[in-house]
């Protein structure tokens, strides 16, 4: 059975590089003034949306570009969040230094989990990662680790203040900080995907056997992709922990994995920019749904997934791209 997720004909049209820069400039032009216009709570929400976008991007690198499944990215998100929280809480490390550490820890964890996962195809990998997601909260509650993790109680963090006496409140500052990190990570992802390595990663998705015959080291690239994917999600986790000022085992359940997965599908599998759409969706739609009734968020997620898979198999970003393609054709 073919494990490669969607067919590659989707890649028939790629926006030229200057369009991407244009896209980035538009996003920046909208995003940068926002913190001065909105209330703190909304700034916080937008910050979280960017955090989710990074995590979804990480998942997309794995699923969308390498064709490997993961229902367990909530575990890497948790690992990143706890790494940052423990460093800040126990060792007084500055919040910005926790990011690279969280990234490295998650990279290693992802790489190691990716090693046995190498032998698992498609749905088996989904199964193994599903197990990871379900068991993660229990691991975080483990009593010998309680000294560091705070057990069920979790760890409370303090929101960082703006440095250099910048005239920003903590929410505004964190927004810009996360924006900068997200911009950097998205930039890196674009470059990774269009590099030689990126081609190898995509080749594995589209046809593992052919990729191997062309000299692509399957196991190395698959584990590395797993590592990089976990790194992204881990950094997102660290940022999420800092932003929420609190980490606890039950924030990182299978529900979070579902949310990331929904974000992936909504944004568009194999689309880097799509992660932003996906993040907004998973953050704001449940908020609205929860106001109607408790527990309805899950149903909204589910119904959305069903509709998307039928109507827009390539997600919102795919829709935008299709429109762009029409436009480009019409011009010709």
């Amino acid at each position, binding site marked *: 059975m073919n494990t490669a*997720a969607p067919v590659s004909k989707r890649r028939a049209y790629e926006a030229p590089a200057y369009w991407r820069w244009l896209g980035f400039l538009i996003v920046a032009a909208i995003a940068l003034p926002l913190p001065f216009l909105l209330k703190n709570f909304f700034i916080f929400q937008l910050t979280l949306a960017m955090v989710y976008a990074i995590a979804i991007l990480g998942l997309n690198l794995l699923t969308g570009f390498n064709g490997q499944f993961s229902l367990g990215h909530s575990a890497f998100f948790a690992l990143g969040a706890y790494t940052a929280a423990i460093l800040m809480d126990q060792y007084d490390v500055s919040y910005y230094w926790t990011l690279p550490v969280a990234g490295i820890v998650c990279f290693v964890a992802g790489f190691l989990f990716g090693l046995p996962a190498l032998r698992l195809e498609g*749905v088996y990998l*989904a*199964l193994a990662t599903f197990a990871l997601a379900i068991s993660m909260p229990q691991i975080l509650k483990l009593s010998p680790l309680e000294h560091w993790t705070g057990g069920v109680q979790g760890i409370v963090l303090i929101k960082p203040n703006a440095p250099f006496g910048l005239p920003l409140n903590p929410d505004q500052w964190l927004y810009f900080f996360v924006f900068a990190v997200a911009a950097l990570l998205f930039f890196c992802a674009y470059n990774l995907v269009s590099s030689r390595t990126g081609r190898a990663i995509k080749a594995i998705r589209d046809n593992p056997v052919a990729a191997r015959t062309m000299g692509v080291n399957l196991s190395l690239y698959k584990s590395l992709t797993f590592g990089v994917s976990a790194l992204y999600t881990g950094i997102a986790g660290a940022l999420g922990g800092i932003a929420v000022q609190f980490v606890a085992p039950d924030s990182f359940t299978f529900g979070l994995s579902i949310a990331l*997965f929904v974000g992936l599908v909504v944004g568009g599998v194999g689309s880097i920019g799509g992660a932003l759409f996906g993040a907004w969706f998973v953050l704001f739609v449940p908020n609205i749904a929860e106001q109607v009734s408790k*527990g309805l968020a*899950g149903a909204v997620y*589910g119904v959305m*997934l*069903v509709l998307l898979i039928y109507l827009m198999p390539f997600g919102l970003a795919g829709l935008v791209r299709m429109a762009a393609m029409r436009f480009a054709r019409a011009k010709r």
Partner: protein
Amino acid sequence: MELFLHQVLAGLATGGIYACMALAIVMIYQAIDHLNFAQGEMAMFSTFIAWQLIEWGFPYWAAFFLTLAISFAGGYMIERVIMRPLHNAPILSHVAMFIALFAILNSAAGFIWDYQVKNFPTPFGTKSILGEGLLSAHDAGMIGATVVMLLFLFLFFRYTRIGLSMRAAAANPESARLVGIRVGWMLALGWGMAASIGAVAGMLIAPVVFLEPNMMSSILLYGFAGAVVGGLTSPAGAVVGGLMVGVIENLAGTFIPVIGRELKLTIALALIVLVLTVKPSGLFGRTVVHRV
């Protein structure tokens, strides 16, 4: 030594739960060639239906069999309405659909019946029949019911034409059509049967773990572990695997300090990863060779 034996017995009791779930998982895997991540939620939803029927005053067995029928119809409809358009879609779409079902059923159950924990009756009674509270009548009944179900399924798949048709339709739909099998029907039938088996599992498990929308998430994981240990292609293996997982879990909890007790789910995770990487066909499954 006595402690060891006691723990094995107690492990078999919980293992019965996992065996039940594992059987349902393997069953649908055979019928549709996919691992259904929503299997646990389907079972949970069925159990709520049974609970509702009993609340309305149906006697236990009437509610039991009515629930089986409703679940069958429900599974059948899920295939016809939701899964049908995806027959040729990539695995990602299938997994996404299972996740969607998972989310919908979970939150719908919470919406309809709220998150309050409910008692669910047992038809077997709760008397201890072995040792002091080691193996209750319900535990024994559950294991017995699972074995009966297994026997029934084995006979069905091995010796009936419709069972053979279902296996063929799942293994190779195109060839199945070419020998005249109505593949769509077979898949829907498989979903219906899997939903019914899940319902049996749910109704047997609910008296032990109590009824609430999230009752199945960890049990599904143990069920997967059991199915994987026994081999996804072998219903008998799934039952044995489920029982083994129960015993391993219990022994680890007793003899490995702290970790064994607190990381029960992680044991399931480790089992799954270990078996899938070392012997993906499980202990009793058939190895499937891929030609490239």
